[in-house]
C-alpha cells in the first residue's frame, strides 16, 4: 500500500518545496519507490529544485485531462533510483485540479509507488485543500516565527476536519511538525521561538528541525536536493528526518550554538 504524505504549511516561503525535494529524495535513497507531486498549479518550482526543469514535457493537469498518461509524464530522476517527479502545470486556471481527477491520478500512482509526496501550494484555498485531502500523513513545515506558527495551526485544523480521512470517519491523518530555518544563535539570544515553544503551541509530534543554512541556497542554485549534500548541516538534518519518518529513533541535532573552531574563527565560517 502506498503512503500519501502531504508537505504543507499555510504560509508561503517556509520551505515546503525544499523539504518535499529533500524528503522525497531521502525516501528513494532508502530504497522506497517514491514520487513527488507538485500541487502548486501555476507556480511550478519543484522541477527547478530537483534540477529537471528542462525535461518537463507533460504535467499533472495533462494527466487529469487525459491529454497524456502517467508514463509519458513522470520524470525519472537521473541521480537516484526509484525517484520520480510529477510536475505541476503552468496554467492560470485555478480550478484545473478536480477532486475526482486528483483521486484518479493518486490511485494510479498508488499501484506503483511506496510513497507519494504531495508538495502543497501556500494558502488554505482549493489548491492546498486538494494536496492534503487524500493524505495519510502530513509534514507541517513551520518557521519559528509568529505568522508561520499561526498558519500551521490553521492547516492542522483543516487536516483534522477537511480531509478525506476526517470526512469518512477514518483514523486521522498522522501529523508531523517539521521546524525549518532554525537559528540556534537567535534562539539563545531570545530573539526566536525555540523548538520547545513551537512544539508546545502546535502540540503535534516533532519529526525534525532543519537549521537555517547556506547549503539550501547552494542546493537550489545547482538543482540538487539539499539532502544530497551529505556534509551540510541541513542535508544531515533532512536525512535524520527521513529516518524518523521511516520509524527510526534518531536524536535531534543542530539545536545548539556550535562553538566556532580555531580555523573557522580565522577564515570565517
Amino acid at each position, binding site marked *: 500500500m502506498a503512503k500519501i504524505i502531504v508537505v504543507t504549511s499555510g504560509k508561503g516561503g517556509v520551505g515546503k518545496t525544499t523539504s518535499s525535494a529533500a524528503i522525497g529524495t531521502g525516501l528513494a535513497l532508502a530504497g522506497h519507490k517514491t514520487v513527488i507531486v507538485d500541487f502548486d498549479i501555476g507556480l511550478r518550482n519543484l522541477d527547478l529544485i530537483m534540477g529537471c526543469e528542462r525535461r518537463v514535457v507533460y504535467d499533472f493537469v495533462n494527466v487529469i485531462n487525459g491529454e497524456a498518461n502517467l508514463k509519458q509524464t513522470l520524470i525519472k530522476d537521473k541521480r537516484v533510483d526509484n525517484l520520480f517527479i510529477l510536475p505541476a502545470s503552468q496554467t492560470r486556471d485555478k480550478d484545473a485540479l478536480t477532486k475526482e481527477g486528483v483521486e484518479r491520478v493518486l490511485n494510479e500512482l498508488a499501484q506503483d509507488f511506496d510513497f507519494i509526496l504531495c508538495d502543497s501550494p501556500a494558502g488554505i484555498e482549493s489548491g492546498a485543500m486538494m494536496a492534503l485531502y487524500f493524505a495519510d500523513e502530513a509534514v507541517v513545515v513551520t518557521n519559528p*516565527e509568529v505568522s508561520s506558527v*499561526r498558519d500551521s495551526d490553521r492547516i492542522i485544523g483543516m487536516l483534522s476536519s477537511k480531509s478525506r480521512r476526517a470526512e469518512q470517519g477514518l483514523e486521522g491523518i498522522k501529523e508531523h511538525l517539521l521546524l525549518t530555518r532554525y537559528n540556534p544563535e537567535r534562539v539563545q539570544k*531570545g530573539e*526566536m*521561538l525555540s523548538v520547545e515553544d513551537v512544539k508546545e*503551541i502546535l502540540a503535534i509530534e516533532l519529526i525534525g528541525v532543519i537549521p537555517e543554512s547556506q547549503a539550501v541556497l547552494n542546493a537550489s542554485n545547482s538543482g540538487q536536493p539539499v539532502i544530497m549534500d551529505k556534509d551540510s548541516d541541513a542535508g544531515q538534518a533532512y536525512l535524520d528526518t527521513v529516518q524518523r519518518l521511516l520509524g527510526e529513533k534518531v536524536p535531534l541535532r543542530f539545536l545548539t550554538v556550535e562553538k566556532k573552531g580555531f580555523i573557522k574563527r580565522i577564515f570565517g565560517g
Partner: protein
Amino acid sequence: MSLLDYFRSKKTNTASTAKERLQIIVAHERKRRSGPDYLPQLERDILEVIRKYVDIPADQIAVSLEQRSDELSVLELNVTFPDEKR
C-alpha cells in the same frame, strides 16, 4: 533605577512575547473553528448592537458556544465595558 539598569532592562526577550501572543490567538482561533460557522457573524452582530449604546473595542467582546452535553449547549457572552459610560 540607574541609567545602566535602564539600558539593560530594555533588552526584552521578544521570543517570549511572541510565544504569549501566539498562545492567546491560537487558543482563540481553535475555539472558533470548533464552533458553528455562524458564530463570527453572531459575534459581529452582538458587537454592533452593544456599540449603539456603549463604545467598546472589538477585542472586548468574546462569544463562545460550549457543548456541555448531547442536549445542552451554552452560549457564553463576555463583554468588558469601559470605565466611563457614555
